[in-house]
């Protein structure tokens, strides 16, 4: 990897080649969609514009809006109280409220349907106690919204928590001194300052919901991604899939565009230099008990309840003679996929970031837009397009793990790129130049100066990609070589046929495997807050 960041006109050849390769694989899904759309005949168009597909799009949008709003209403108060109010053990609460992040939505979906669904645990219990033998079905919009909200609010919580921590508290104090009480100050000063991160965080949750496949499929809520998957499995003609996918991409691009408009208009960055006073936490007074109750109930429903249900099914399964032998293969496969993907993605992202940050090229703007592909394209679409290219052009890697890893790299690339850019921006080229003047050997500069500075950022990138890939489902389902099962696919296969007991062990394994990177991530984030 080229770490010689001094300003030159063009990046070295090997970096250029790597960037060309990245752009090539990023463009594959888009290329595929466009190629397919050209094939569209009027008949397909008629089907697409039939009410059926319109409803699917509306259903997706409805779910997206509901989940975004609910997560915002959960995450904003929690983050605000966690940072700015006196609460016992604030860091423990922060960790507990972030942990639901490691539970994949399809695991959450099977947990809640096994708990609240017909013939579920709750109904069993109510039947014994009160003779209730029928509960309203939670499948559909309600179930999907519940699962996605409870499992995706931690993303927003983490984003908001860090921006509330970085909020300049003298702004709030100035407003108080100018005669505004705490409530008015919150709405007139704090909230406008938080707006960019509220928008960015909500955007993330919207796109996450839009591209979710696991929860909607298990909750049998027919959305775009679910429709794409069904089409993929049933029909030979793929142009309908492409149309639906394009609709999805179109929605995602509109959301991104609206966000960027908001961002460029706003003037929210910190002005002036100097230290902003440390946060003075407000005492909750009589509200302490209700607030702790609120925090506990959210931790209960989003973390403790799902974990307990998993343990319940695990024990029930073991008692019924489920074997745990197969699990080692699944763990091996999942780890292999996640680790290789993390390293590859971070390596590629670093190369791209070097070009974007250190070279002022005319095409940089387009490179950046293309890099976002994984952000707007759901896993299902990426996977289907790679199947096409695999079959038609790259037969030698079709049905191998390489194609699967490429899909995972495309999907995780935007996250890793954002992080790598931030890391590189931290390294002032002058630091490097001064190091070069002090040490003759450039390798010493890399080992003693650059790697220590970048370490935290690189660990964060690796951990994020690992977490994403560990949970990745649709690409693995579609692209995995025959007989290749990961924890994710095994959970989905068992859960979609309601073998909950069989899904419990892999689900628990996946959650525990995800804990380590999450802890690394939170630690690294804590460090970067101090800097």
């Amino acid at each position: 990897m080229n770490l010689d960041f001094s300003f030159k006109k063009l990046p070295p050849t090997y970096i250029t080649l790597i960037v060309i390769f990245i752009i090539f694989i990023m463009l594959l899904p888009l290329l595929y969609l466009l190629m397919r759309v050209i094939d569209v005949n009027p008949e397909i168009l008629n089907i697409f514009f039939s009410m059926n597909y319109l409803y699917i799009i509306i259903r997706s949008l409805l779910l997206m809006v509901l989940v975004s709003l609910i997560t915002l209403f959960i995450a904003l108060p929690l983050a605000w109280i966690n940072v700015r109010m006196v609460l016992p053990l604030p860091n423990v609460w922060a960790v507990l409220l972030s942990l639901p992040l490691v539970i994949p939505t399809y695991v959450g979906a099977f947990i809640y349907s096994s708990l609240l669904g017909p013939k579920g645990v709750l109904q069993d219990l109510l039947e014994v106690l009160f003779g209730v033998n029928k509960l309203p079905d939670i499948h559909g919009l309600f179930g999907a919204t519940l699962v996605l909200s409870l499992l995706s609010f931690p993303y927003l919580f983490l984003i908001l928590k860090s921006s509330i921590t970085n909020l300049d508290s003298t702004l709030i104090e100035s407003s108080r001194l100018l005669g505004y009480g705490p409530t008015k100050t919150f709405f007139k000063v704090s909230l406008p300052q938080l707006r960019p991160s509220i928008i960015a965080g909500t955007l993330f949750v919207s796109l996450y919901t839009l591209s979710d496949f696991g929860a909607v499929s298990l909750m049998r809520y027919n959305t775009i991604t679910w429709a794409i998957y069904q089409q993929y499995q049933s029909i030979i003609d793929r142009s309908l899939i492409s149309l639906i996918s394009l609709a999805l991409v179109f929605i995602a691009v509109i959301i991104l565009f609206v966000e960027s408009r908001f961002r460029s208009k706003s003037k929210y960055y910190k002005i002036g230099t100097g230290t902003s006073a440390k946060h003075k936490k407000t005492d909750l007074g009589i509200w302490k008990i209700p607030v702790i109750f609120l925090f506990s109930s959210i931790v209960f429903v989003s973390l403790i309840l799902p974990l307990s249900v998993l343990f319940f099914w695990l024990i029930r399964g073991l008692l019924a003679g489920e074997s745990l032998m197969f699990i080692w293969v699944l763990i091996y496969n999942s780890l292999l996929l996640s680790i290789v993907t993390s390293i590859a993605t971070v390596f590629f992202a670093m190369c791209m970031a070097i070009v974007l940050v250190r070279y002022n090229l005319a095409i940089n703007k387009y490179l950046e837009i293309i890099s976002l592909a994984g952000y707007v394209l759901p896993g299902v679409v990426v996977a289907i397009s790679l199947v096409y290219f695999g079959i038609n052009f790259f037969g030698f890697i079709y049905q191998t793990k390489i194609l699967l890893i490429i899909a995972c790299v495309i999907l995780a690339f935007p996250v890793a790129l954002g992080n790598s850019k931030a890391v590189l921006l931290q390294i002032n080229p002058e630091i490097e130049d001064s190091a070069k003047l002090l040490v003759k050997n450039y390798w010493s500069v890399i080992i003693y100066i650059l790697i220590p500075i970048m370490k935290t950022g690189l660990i964060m990138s690796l951990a994020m990609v690992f977490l994403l890939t560990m949970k990745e489902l649709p690409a693995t389902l579609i692209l995995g070589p025959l007989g290749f099962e990961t924890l994710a696919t095994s959970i989905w296969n068992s859960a979609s046929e309601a073998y909950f007991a069989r899904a419990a062990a892999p689900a628990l394994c996946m959650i525990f495997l995800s804990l380590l990177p999450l802890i690394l991530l939170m630690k690294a984030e804590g460090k970067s807050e101090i800097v």
Partner: protein
Amino acid sequence: MSLVLNCKKISKYFGKYQVIKNLDFQLFSGQILSILGTSGCGKTTLLRLISGLEELDKGEIVINSKTMSSSGFHSPPDKRNIGMVFQNYSLFPHMNVFNNIAFGLKNFNKKDKENRVKEVLEITRLEEFVNRYPQELSGGQQQRVALARTLAPKPTIMLLDEPFSNLDAFTRTAMLADLQKIIRDSKISTILVTHDREEAFATSDYLAVMVNGGIVQFDKPDVVVRSPINIDVATLVLNCGFLEGIINNGVLNTTIGNFSFKTLGLNNTEIGDGKVDVLIKPEDFNLAYDPNGNFKVISIEFRGMYSMVQVQSINHGFLLKFIYNQKEQLWNIGSNVNLIKSNTDPLIVYRRI
């Protein structure tokens, strides 16, 4: 002149650490008070206590004969009508200059609001920037907006926390004069906190020197400079050093000679015999080449009209800066020199505690 602020024996603890210790002082209407102290001495905390951003542990803060803080009572900052300019100015980035300044005028109708904003814009000479956003202004302009925003609601007291620390030297000099005029014109009682002695002297009617959470000396600036009450105050307000001296039968002996002396607040006879610290100010001495001298020349900076000569005490380690404007000099960097008393004023001595 009426009493605006009365701090009665106030104390503040952060955990076990007492940041403000039994502090006592008054501010009268229209006065400008500078609080001088090293960083960490509690001066910012004092401002935050007065403004109500921090709660008091002991004592009482009375503003315009109303108790605002006491050990059991705390009036919130939005009910005190106290203005504060923060070190980082803390302008609202999402509002333009007009809205920043009008922010505190919440009970004004539209017309009055516009008039008042116009008034303070004029005082602070910001008329042309009214539609700009804070990040489109220079440091000095941002500070004037912060000042205008604070002045607009006509606060009872205005607090300034290290107002010049984020400005470059050139802007700082310009703002120092500006600030003084703005405060005088608006007739608002002001407390300015700083660690820079020149800022403290330039702007204030009174000077309070703060050491370790307490006010050690409170007087007019020239009085403090002429008679610093103890070593800490002298170090803060003067370019000076301390030599060890011995008083023997009413005579002060030091390594650079015997001198007449005076003590502050005591008769010379009261101090008795024994070791004292002698305040050495460059104004009282000339430099003379002396191979056996107790001082060494560390640096000579040519400044055009004069040279700035820095010498270090060989025995005590302190540094003194001398202005030297004679053409001939017998010494160079590294030479030993001695100090020769250039006037007949008695030297100030402090009793060892």
